[in-house]
Structures are given as C-alpha cells and as structure tokens.
C-alpha cells in the first residue's frame, strides 16, 4: 500500500489547525500516518471533542439523588422507582437536515434511538424540536415537508411513538434549520449498559449493517464547520437511514443484553468505528487492536481511511466476554444480522488499527480523548444588544379589534396547531401513550407500574436572542412548567445547545450566558442535566442562528391516572389564573406577528415565584382539585384561553380580565410563572387556600360556558370555525 506523505497541510485538510497538528507530533514523538491524522481530525473535531464547550459545560449541575447516569455516556439515566430507570437524551442533526432534509432528519432519529438502546433501554418515546426559516422563504416549505417526513419515516418504521415536541418558524433560521431529536427508553435500573471497555483479551464485535462509503466526514465536516452556499454539494456526507435494520438491531441488542455476555457496547455514530472504539478503550483505560480488513464492507476496494471514518448507519460495536463469541453470533443471526469479531482488547493502552496485519494507526487512546484540546475562546457581549433591548411601549399602537387580533395570532406560524406535523407520526405504537402531542407535555404510562412519565421540550429563541441568560432560564422553567401542567414532578433534563460559530466572541458570550441561565434554573428547580449535545457552527455565510439552548425535561407522575390535559372538561367549572400578569410585551409573539418587531427584554422571571407556582399546581393535582391545566406561554392569556377551548369537547369560556395595564399586554403579554386552570366551583376555596399558602396570586377569571371564547368587552370568538382555521393554518402554509 502506498502511503501519502503527511505534512501540516494534510492535517489542515482533515479539519485540524496547524497548532493542533504540532501538538500531535509532539505527543506521538513522530510524524503521524495519514490515517492517524484523519483519526485525530474527527476525534478532535468540535462535534466529537466538545473542545470549545467542555470548559463551560462543567458549570452545569449533573448530580442528584435520582441520577443513575450523568453526561459522558451514550445517554443519561434517572431512577423512576419500581426498580426502573428512564434513559434519555436529545441530539441535533442540523446541517445534514439542511443539506438533505429527509435523510438528515431520519438518521437524526436513528442515531438518538441507538444512543438509548445502547444503554440497555427499550425506547418508548420520541420527541422532535424543530426550527425552520420564515414561511415566506422559498426553501422553508420544502425543508419542513422533508424533515417531518424523515422523522416520521424512521420512528414509524422502527415502531417507537412520537409523543411530542415543538416547532417554530423564524427568518433567523432561513439558512440553518435546527432538527433536534429526543428519545426516552425504560431499562431495569440495575442493568444499565455502559461504553467502558474492560478485560484485555476480550473480543471486540462488530454488529449491524455493513460499512459503506456514506457519511464520511459527516461529523467533522458537516457538524463542525459553517455551511456555505454550496451546502447541497455536501449531500454525499449525509448518511442514509435504514430503520428496518435498526429495528432488528434494537431487538437483537435487547435480547443480548438480557444475557451476561456483554462487557461494553457503543453505537457507531459520529466518526463511526473510530470514535466508538477509541471512546470505549479510553473510558476503560485499556488498549484495543482492530483488524480493519475484517470489517464487513458494502463494496470492494474500500481503504482503511474510509473504513475508519465511514458513518454508515445502524452499526454497533460491543466488547463481549472471552468465549461468548458464538453465543453473541447466534442471537444476531436469529435476527438475520451479522456479528463479526474484528479485534481484541489489549493491556498496553494503545488504540491500534491494522490492515492485513500491518499497523496503520497506533495511538495511545488517552491522547485521542483526554488530551484533546480545550479552548477558552474569547467572549464579548454583542454591541447591538442594547439597541435590541430598547422598546418604547408608547410607540406600539394597541389594536382596535381584539377578536381580529386574536384570530390573526391563532393562525400565525408559531401559534397555530402542529397537527399537520404530528399527524405524520405514529403516536400509538407501544401502547403507553396517555397524553398525545398537542398538550403541554406528553404523558406515557410506565408499564407494570402505577406511574407515568411526562416530557416536554422548550426554547423560545426570541427570548434567547434578546437575553440569552434569561431566555435559557425560561427555557428550563417552561419545560418544567409544562411537565407540572400535566401533573408531573420535574426530575431531570437533557439539553441540545444549538449555537453559531464559537470562534466569534459574540457567539461565545451567548453560549456562556445560556449555560449560566441553565445552571441557575436547574439549581433552583433541583433538576440536573443528565445528558446533552452541543451543536456549534450553525452559521451560514457569516450569519449565525440565534442562541437556541433546547431543553427537554422529564417528569414523574406517581399516579398516572391523575394526569391533566389543557382542555375544559365541563360547563360551569371556574376558570382560574394562578400567577401574576405584568405589563410586558418584549419579545412576544404578539409584538412579532402584529407589529413586526422582535425587541425589548424577555418577560421577567423570578425563580422563587416559579417554584411556588409549580409546588402549588402539584399540590392541587395531589388533592385532585384541578380539572384542566395549561401553561400560559407564547400568545399570552388570550391564546391560552382559546387553546383550552380547542379540545374534543368544544367547551367555550366566558371571562372578564382586569389588569390596570395596556390591554394588549393583558391579553397577549407572556408573563412567566402563570397557569390557567379549571376547577369545580366547590373546589375553589380549597384551591385559594393552597395558593395563599404558596403566596401565588389566584384569580377567578370566569367560567367554562357556551361555544365561544368571550373576554368581556374585548373578544368574542366562535370556537368551531376558529379551531378549524387554527388546525389547518400550517398545512395551508407548508402545502400538501
């Protein structure tokens, strides 16, 4: 085999900086081979090494009494009682989805599913958090249709229900969409599998699909660099998903994990065979030797470089106990999958890749993992922020017709129903879904127990753009509040930190602010971060996305039968607002949709007040006082009242609002820490007592009545026709 001569240019071609190359030469004490440079290129890429974020991520609280596994493994895990663990994680697949929306999004789902079942958990729920450009942008409908179809295709085919998520449209994502996928699985708490290799001599076994030339450099080129006008030319770097094979892999792996043959297991995701074998060896502080010529290939003529870097999907690497080879093979063959021994663990700490007996790489594993560079990049508050935060309320003219304004909001891209999206997802498979998409949070029951799990995903990037610290705090507390609205106690979260180019000081500042916000909110609520993902370089031709720290919160219901939905239940019930409305419209949907502005400061957030509200609602759930509950969020109180009226029963609302403030702020302001609930008349005094104890304002607004939403003197909205327009608005805009 002829070997290309390696120079600093080779390294730069593989995504390394000249300084990084120098450090590699110094640590190895020699010139690396071409394959070694490629391996460093992917392992030290932003995507795999977290080199720009690692230092800051250490600030996040990651421990707690329920935490069974924090960040650093394939997924996080928390104890949910009855001897069970909830295993979950969220991950981005942004650039691939922009380049090829269907496959990019589909493989995003495939990857996060593998992360979860690698831990020994059967995936039971998917959520997706999507950010698209303006619906006026010619490419947006195409991207939206492709991404939604791709997410649906993978989840539907593998048979895991999609139970919730969120989607928003904003011109700031025109050239860089976000596709974040979340999966939650259930595992026996005492049988979590980890990716830590142990036992020199133990076989390294390759299972699943064959390796092809697809997805080479998906992680290092697509996910660790900015996009440019030639993005579509990078299509070959996007992997192609095969959910059927993954379904077989899932069933075979779970079957294998019920045996005692497995020592460690890891998904071959970003940087494929390289990162999975390096990380397993690094975590276990052992060496490994991989015979690349034994790797099952899809086509002839593939060279070591391609085999090492391929990101072909639906592959796993596992370390088995010596002597278990035949047993492992038998299980996979039953599912028509191959399991091939491609290497062994060694005791020299060296990660070695051989090609027909000859070393092509021999690198101490810890150099690839622990010695990866950590950058503390310069950070600086963006200059334009003061100007954006300035909002003179006197310049905002109040609407003349509030019924009309409310209708406009309810059919606007970010407030209309998401049914067009989730209608394309199987929400039923698995037989666990209690609250399907469309509520504040999804609820699933935990089979064989009385308990249930709630999950919600949240991030308002108007808020984060105006103030990344406050925006991140609100993302956390709102995801938690959504869990509380269905009756669940927030347990822990996973985050997907989508940001622009970290080499820009303003982006780095946004990142640091967001981390601080997540940290403070987590500490206040007692919800640790157990897993997550950082996606930098969401930048196209110099334009960065707004900071988007997506938060997926998981909560627990001790009695799943006590779950709540937002929808009114019975005529005559009292409608009550818990929490205080302030005169604030900064960063609101109303300001954006009606006045065409995203400015001002995000709503005020007081973490103590938030905690009291959440405690109050959970106490009221335990006392069975509430008939419905809905978080008051984007679109404010008026939109929340309409949403509560859009359930299957078609009950309306008749309320009177008093505020001593601008009417638009009263109706559409997005003050935090508020919950709209309905209760039986006879439960009112008990609810008032609880609210007094927690010092939360408790205001009876009116009652469930008729078939319209009536806000005295301001709004009179017929439910049936409005609901139909709200339901169909997205389909009309996205087309087909």
């Amino acid at each position, binding site marked *: 085999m002829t070997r290309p001569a390696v120079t600093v240019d080779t390294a730069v071609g593989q995504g390394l900086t000249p300084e990084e190359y120098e450090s590699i030469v110094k640590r190895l004490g020699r010139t690396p081979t071409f394959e070694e440079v490629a391996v460093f290129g992917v392992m030290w890429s932003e995507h795999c090494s977290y080199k720009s974020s690692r230092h800051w991520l250490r600030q996040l609280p990651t421990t707690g009494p329920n935490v069974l596994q924090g960040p650093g493994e394939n997924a996080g895990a928390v104890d949910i009682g009855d001897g069970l663990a909830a295993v979950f994680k969220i991950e981005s697949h942004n650039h691939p989805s922009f380049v090829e929306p269907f496959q990019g999004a589909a493989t995003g789902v495939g990857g996060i599913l593998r992360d979860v079942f690698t831990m020994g958990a059967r995936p039971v729920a998917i959520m997706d958090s999507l950010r698209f450009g303006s619906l006026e942008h010619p490419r947006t409908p195409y991207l939206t249709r492709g991404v939604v179809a791709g997410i649906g295709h993978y989840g539907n085919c593998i048979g895991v229900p999609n139970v919730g998520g969120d989607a928003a449209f904003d011109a700031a994502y025109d050239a860089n969409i976000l596709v974040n996928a979340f999966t939650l699985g259930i595992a026996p708490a005492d049988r979590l599998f980890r990716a830590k290799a142990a036992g020199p001599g133990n076989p390294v076994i390759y299972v699943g699909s064959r390796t092809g030339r697809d997805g080479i450099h998906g992680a290092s080129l697509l996910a660790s660099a900015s996009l440019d006008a030639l993005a579509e030319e990078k299509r070959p770097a996007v992997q192609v998903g*095969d959910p059927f094979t993954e379904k077989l892999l899932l069933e075979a792996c779970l079957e294998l994990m019920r045996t005692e043959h497995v020592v460690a297991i890891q998904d071959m995701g970003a940087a494929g065979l390289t990162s999975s074998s390096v990380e397993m060896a690094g975590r276990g502080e052992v060496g490994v030797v991989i015979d690349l010529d034994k790797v099952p290939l899809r086509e002839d003529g593939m060279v070591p470089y391609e085999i090492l870097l391929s990101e072909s999907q639906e592959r796993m690497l596992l370390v088995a106990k010596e002597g278990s080879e035949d047993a492992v093979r038998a299980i996979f063959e039953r599912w028509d999958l191959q399991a091939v021994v491609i290497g062994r663990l060694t005791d020299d700490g060296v990660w070695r890749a051989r090609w027909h007996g000859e070393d092509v790489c021999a690198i101490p594993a810890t150099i690839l993992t622990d010695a990866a560079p950590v950058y503390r990049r310069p950070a600086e508050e963006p200059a334009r922020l003061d100007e954006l935060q300035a909002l003179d309320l006197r310049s905002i003219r109040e609407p003349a017709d509030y019924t009309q304004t409310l209708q406009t909001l309810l059919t606007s891209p970010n407030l209309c129903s998401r049914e067009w999206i989730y209608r394309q997802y199987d929400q039923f498979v698995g*037989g666990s879904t209690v609250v399907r998409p469309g509520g504040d949070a999804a609820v699933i029951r935990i089979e064989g127990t009385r308990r249930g799990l709630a999950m919600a995903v949240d991030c308002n990037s108007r808020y984060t753009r105006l103030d990344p610290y406050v925006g991140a705090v609100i993302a956390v507390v709102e995801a938690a509040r959504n869990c509380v609205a269905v009756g669940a106690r927030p347990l822990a979260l996973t985050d997907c930190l989508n940001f622009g180019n970290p080499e820009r000081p303003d982006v780095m500042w946004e990142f640091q602010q967001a981390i601080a916000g997540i940290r403070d909110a987590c500490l206040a609520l007692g919800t640790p971060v157990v897993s997550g993902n950082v996606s930098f370089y969401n930048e196209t031709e110099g334009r960065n996305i707004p900071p988007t720290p997506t938060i997926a919160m998981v909560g627990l219901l001790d009695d799943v039968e006590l779950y709540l939905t937002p929808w009114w239940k019975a005529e005559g019930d009292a409608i009550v607002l818990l929490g205080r409305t302030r005169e604030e419209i900064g960063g609101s949907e109303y300001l954006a949709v009606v006045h065409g502005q995203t400015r001002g400061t995000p709503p005020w957030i007081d973490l103590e007040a938030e905690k009291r509200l959440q405690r109050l609602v959970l106490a009221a759930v335990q006392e069975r006082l509430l008939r419905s509950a809905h978080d008051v969020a984007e679109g404010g109180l008026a939109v929340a009242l309409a949403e509560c009226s859009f359930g299957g029963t078609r009950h309306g609302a008749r309320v009177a609002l008093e505020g001593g403030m601008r009417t638009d702020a009263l109706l559409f302001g997005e003050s935090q820490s508020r919950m709209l609930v309905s209760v039986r008349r006879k439960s009112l005094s008990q609810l008032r007592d609880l609210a007094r104890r927690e010092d939360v304002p408790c205001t009876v607004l009116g009652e469930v009545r008729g078939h319209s939403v009536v806000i005295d003197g301001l709004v009179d909205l017929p439910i049936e026709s409005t609901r139909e327009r709200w339901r169909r608005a997205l389909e009309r805009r996205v087309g*087909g």
Partner: protein
Amino acid sequence: MRWGVVVFPGSNDDRDNLRVAERILGDEAVALWHKDRDLRACDAVVLPGGFSYGDYLRCGAIARLSPIMDAVAEHARGGGVVIGICNGFQILCEAGLLPGALLANRSLKFVCEITNVRVETTDTAFTYGCRAGELLSVPIKHGEGCYVADETTLAEIEDQGLVVFRYADRSGRVTPEANPNGSLNNIAGVCNAGRNVVGMMPHPEHAAERLLGGDDGLKLFRSVQAWVGRDSRSPRREPTVVPGP
C-alpha cells in the same frame, strides 16, 4: 382461548396485541416466530402492524413468503380465525387470503389519527359481539391504507357483505370527508367468504384501555372469544349486514 401473534422482522404492534390478549382479556397468548411452521395450537392468529421486512418492496409482499404463512393459510382454510391489522391486513391481501389490495394514501403521506369506523356486518370473527351499524373510535396509522379492488371484485365484496368496517363521520355517515386515505367505498376492513379471516387498517389493539384514550377496540377482541367459543351445533346466526355505503 389461546392467541398467537406472528412476529415478522419489522413487526411493531406485536407486543401491543399480546398485551391485550394476555393482560386485558386474561387469555393465553404466544408470539409466533416467522421462521417457524407451527401455530402452537392457537385458536386465533393475529398478524400485527408494523413494517415487515421494512416494506421496502410492496407492503406485505415479502412477509407472505415467510415459513409461518403456510400454517396461517392452512388454519384459515380450516375455518380458524385469522386477524390482520394494518401491515397484517396488507399481508393477508398479498397472500390472497383476503380480496383487494392496499395502496399509498391519496395524500401520499403517513396519517395517524383517531377515526370512526362503522361496523357493517356482525357475522365475522372480529365483529361477532358488535351491533350492526355500531360506531367504534379506533386509531389509524399508516402510509399505505387506501383499499382498492377491481370493479368485479368490489361488486362481489359488496354483494356478499364482505365489507366489515367503513370510515364514517361522528354521526355514522359514510362521507368523503371521513375517508382518511382514499379507500374505495370508505372501506376500512374486509373479510373472506368464510368470515373467519378479517383484515382492517385501524388498530383495535391501540383502543383497548380507557387510560390510553378509549376501549372500543376491545369489542373486536371479545368478538373473537365469542366466535371461537360459540357452540358449533347451534344454528348459524343469520348474517346482519348494513346495506352498502
């Protein structure tokens, strides 16, 4: 009674059907592996939903060639109960055990929603315990559920009362708006001439518990219990058939 649920590679709702049979009905239930040739003395066989073999060819086209399908066909010929749900329905059509075929939805999109289906005949293994004209709230979730048949076959199906379910609106009217996938005559499920083999696109196993949104689907599973348990010596019930769409 004893239920068998076939597990093809790519079956997804197998566990849900087993759960209904075992945990809710309290019956015996076994998973039948596609590579086996023995139905293990099951009274009723369910072909569950999912994407057998990835449905990369025509839906159900490969699954029908599985070793287990010979036994399923023999069971059906002998009058044994065979139920196909969603992908299972597609497989039964591919195997020639049921008339017609299922094509891509008119919208060309996967659709997941709760539909109302009207029971068109109570003289089948899957509707024996229902009332004729009864409306059931049952979810669908499929990309290829548009039921079609050639004109002659369709006429035969209608004349012989082989249509078991039709999509209907809330008040039981069979309307174009209530048709989620473009199926001819709003057909959601059909049976064979012996009325022991029934296929349907909606998923009764996902409508079997109130906690999960409703239990109308249980009536269909209970119908199989009644059908299997009926006294074969008693006179056959007169078929009750709702007139055409």
